[in-house]
């Protein structure tokens, strides 16, 4: 036989939580109507970065693919030629794919990348209807062209050779005199 407390007080006490919460600030987010910024270092969709003149930073080295624990990255390198240059130096990533069906957004690829070509954005809306659409190709991952950038292929605009790019001894876009700033 339940006690009186159990019969009459406990059922009402349960609603106490409900009542208290009614006067608190709601935590429900109105996603997708309202989008909230993520934490600044949130691991979101990847981005392939560019040099200030628009050349790609990726050198097609596949170290990201090597580091990836989920085998989500596929890279094929190729040679830059005099007529078609995509990155400073000799080598660029001709094929670059990340499979977001596999990626666990761990960021190990970012750590492996020797050129800071690969970083992560805060973009988290990675859902789609088909498998193909979730394999992001190079053009999906490349950073947008900012002012002053030019769509590769084009020659190295910032320095005489890849050494200038890597050492940071290239001419800045904002440098009026056109001389190299260290």
């Amino acid at each position, binding site marked *: 036989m339940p006690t009186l407390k159990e019969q009459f007080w406990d059922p009402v006490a349960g609603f106490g939580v409900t009542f208290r919460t009614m006067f608190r600030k709601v935590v429900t987010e109105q996603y997708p109507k309202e989008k909230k910024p993520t934490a600044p270092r949130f691991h979101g969709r990847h981005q392939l970065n560019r040099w200030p003149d628009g050349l790609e930073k990726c050198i097609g*080295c596949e170290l990201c*693919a*090597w580091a990836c624990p989920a085998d989500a990255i596929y890279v094929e*390198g190729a040679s830059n030629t005099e007529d078609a240059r995509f990155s400073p130096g000799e*080598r660029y990533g001709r094929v670059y794919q990340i499979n977001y069906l596999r990626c666990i957004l761990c960021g190990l690829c970012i750590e492996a990348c*020797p050129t800071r070509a690969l970083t992560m954005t805060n973009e988290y809306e990675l859902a789609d209807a088909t498998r193909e659409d979730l394999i992001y190709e190079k053009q999906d991952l490349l950073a947008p062209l900012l002012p002053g950038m030019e769509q590769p292929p084009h020659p190295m605009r910032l320095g005489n050779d890849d050494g200038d790019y890597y050492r940071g001894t290239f001419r800045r876009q904002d440098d009026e005199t056109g001389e190299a700033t260290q």
Partner: protein
Amino acid sequence: MTVTPSKAGSNAPAPQDLVTLTIDGIETSVPKGTLVIRAAEQIGVQIPRFCDHPLLAPVGACRQCLVEVAMPGPDGELRTMMGPPGRVKPQASCTLPVAEGMQVKTQLTSPIADKAQQGVMEQLLINHPLDCPVCDKGGECPLQNQAMTNGRGESRFQEVKRTFPKPINISAQVLLDRERCVLCARCTRFSEQVAGDPFIALVERGALQQVGIYEKEPYRSNFSGNVIQICPVGALTSADYRFRARPFDLVSTPSVAEHDSGGAAIRVDHRRGKVVRRLAWNDPEVNEEWITDKDRFAFHYANRPDRLTHPQVRDGETGELRPASWPEAFAVAARGLRAAGRVGVLTGGRLTREDAYGYAKFARVALGTNDIDFRSRPASAEEEQFLASRVAGRGLGVTYTDLERANAVVLLGLEPEEEAGTLFLRLRKAYRAGGTRIFAVAPFTSNGLRKLGATVVKAAPGEEVPAIEQLAHDGELALDGGGVILVGERLATVPGALSAVAVLASQTGARLAWVPRRAGDRGALDAGCLGSVLPGGRPLADAGARVDVGAVWGSTVPTVPGRDTDGILAAAAAGELGGLVVAGVDLDDLADPTAARAAVASAGFVVSLELRASAVTEHADVVFPVAPVAEKPGSFVSWEGRVRPFEKVLEGSNAVPDVRVLAGIADELGTPLGFQTIEAAAAELDEFASWDGERAADPTVAASPAAPAPAGSHRLATWKTMIGDGPMQDGDPAYHASGPTPTVLVSAATLESLGAAVGDQVELSTDTGTAVLAVGVADLADDVVWAPTSSGGVNLGRDLGAGAGSAVRLSLVPAAAPAVQEAM
């Protein structure tokens, strides 16, 4: 890592030659003369190294292998080897032979050795660019690995590194990144010692020292790919594989090279269903660690756009080939062959042993004919008899190792550097070791023969027979004291030559081996792809042999002797044969390509089993796509008679081997082959025990003296260069560019009478056509010229209707007009 077990074990010395020493406290006994680094390998201690390579002479160039060594003095007391007073001097273990009582301490037990090695590594890395992310060797690099195991973790180097402009071409195929080089001299030693092409050397001094090429002469070698493989850093890379993949992407499968009869072991690396590179694999009995550039780089043929992907049949109405299903194609092929009546089979030289056996049985059981020939090249009836009596089904004969032991080796109708590269390297090793003298009957002293130190008995094309007969009495050669005769397939074109060879071998007791050019030839012969030879070398003419074969096959063997390749084509053209089954034959390889094309075009019914569209598929009534070697298992038989099995490399491929296609047609014909897979074919072929009955007699064809060249013309000597034209070499421009410039060689006197200089363009002509080639000079007879059979787009048979011994005319092509304009 290039760590190879010591070869010392193979020529095991008498026990008294053993030396006992202590390495890291472990006592071991090794043969006298063993290097410390090898002795350490034997007890499982790996000393880091760059320049050391077991197949190259030691140089001690990199100093990475330093160890601490103590020797017992005359008083028996151990004394550590010292440098400046008070300081231990570590020794390079790759140049130091073992000595009795020696005490070696490696990096494992000696802090001094460890520190010395770290110091050397630091020194090597000072000017190394550390550009591993863009380096092809990254991930499989001895420098990377040893920097991790035997180097300092942190760099102390702050200064600016020495750099060179990015890669330079050592040849069209081999690229050199000079700043990555650690100056180990492996590449230069390989070229000088193993291949004998020394146009690559270490030049300059000090920090500027680098690998260089002789400026006027590019690095030209049939074996250049090996330097890429043995370079312990990424300084040498190939244009073909550059930036193509990473070691961790690749699936590696051991296989056997399909480009010559050497049977070289290779490793095939593939990625996503596509072969991306091939490397030499280590087989001490066969190719050691070297392969030819053809074996290494010529693999793109299987991925050309003209690769056949589905069966095709010729449409009755339009006369065009149209895609068909497999069952339809089998049915159409069977119906056509049945209607054709008598059918001939041409199999070419690219088949594996199992596929060849499929054809041999298909011809006899399903088609009821002995009209089958694997020789897609100039051939003769004399050769057929020679092969039947001396080669077919004989099993392992002369081996690579035997060549090193032989006193003398005679090369007849064979240019090993171009026609059997693996054999060339072993002959050169034998020659350099000093024990083997090499003789050759050839029209001139080729570069290859020079590198073998060969004594050349000169013979113009067609005049080899007297020269061969003379060899029996050559006191210097002394074939009877343990000599070996190597006969090339080209000798078939000289009447009487193979008969003379058989006599020579019998007279002198020298051992004889036949060295065909193509990988499949010996296997096809053993499998019975020759009119007069049944599987296992059984002679068709022998009733007992026929019964033997019939018992395995469960049917009777046709007795009518078969025709050879030319005979089959002539009979097809004349309508005596109603049909042809052709497998992978390049008509341009035949003695008369024009006639062959006409014969295939006019033949009643042609079934073609091919990899890619060809001159045969153009006229075929039914075309079946078949698998290239990388997409099926099988085996080749090397010139030694050694069976070289290999596995399927591209597991995902569903391309169909020839055997399966033949089984499909045979089923439709109502005479099943009894096997459908490679494995079953191999098992049945193995049922044929070696033939112990009577063999065909040696050929006895009399030599017919060669007609002298008509006035104003020259006799043509010719063979194929290794890097040349051919459907199996398509698809790699760098590979072709690294080959020799197609050059016609003439004597100095002829050059003078032409008024030409070396390198000028000359026109080679016959009544059929003309070809323009560069001219060079060699020690030929004045009435003989030499030209490559098929390279640089010129095919002598197709363009000139000329073969070995033909008369050709020569004239100088006037210098091109633009040069004149410039002068004006």
